[in-house]
């Protein structure tokens, strides 16, 4: 589950008048559910411990959300 697969990026306009150091590249999450039409029954499942850690009972729907990124 590499990080880049579920992330989109864009380069915001950087104004010379920005008081703070600009953020050059901003990323946003493109979770797997955007690409899955309808969840097939009987997909392989995580163990409860893994599910809580990764954020979904089904590995196919895990988007690598990380604490640093905050709420996607």
């Amino acid at each position, binding site marked *: 589950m590499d990080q880049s697969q579920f992330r989109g990026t864009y380069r915001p306009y950087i104004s010379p008048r920005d008081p703070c150091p600009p953020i050059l590249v901003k990323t946003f999450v493109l979770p797997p559910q955007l690409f899955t039409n309808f*969840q097939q*029954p*009987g997909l392989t499942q995580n163990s*409860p*411990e893994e*599910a*809580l850690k990764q954020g*979904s*009972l089904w590995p196919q729907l895990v988007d690598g959300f990380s604490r640093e990124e905050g709420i996607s």
Partner: protein
Amino acid sequence: MNANEEEWNMLKKVQQADFVVVELTLYTDTHPNDIEALKQWRDAIKEASRVRREYEARFGPLSLLSVPSSQALDVGWRWSNTPWPWQR
């Protein structure tokens, strides 16, 4: 593994079991006819309540809806006393 760590692990188990129940409930909302999932969902609810009961029998209530044991009250357990389970 001291008692505190053991308690923390059981609390994590309660959280994991509850998470599975939430996930399966959402899944069965969109897949009402998935018999297997419905069965797993019912089992997950039972499992979550079992794990929660097991924790509460040893370390006290986790929510207002669970009745504290009389011994707990005798030794002075009250909701108003800190620390709460997840703070320990």
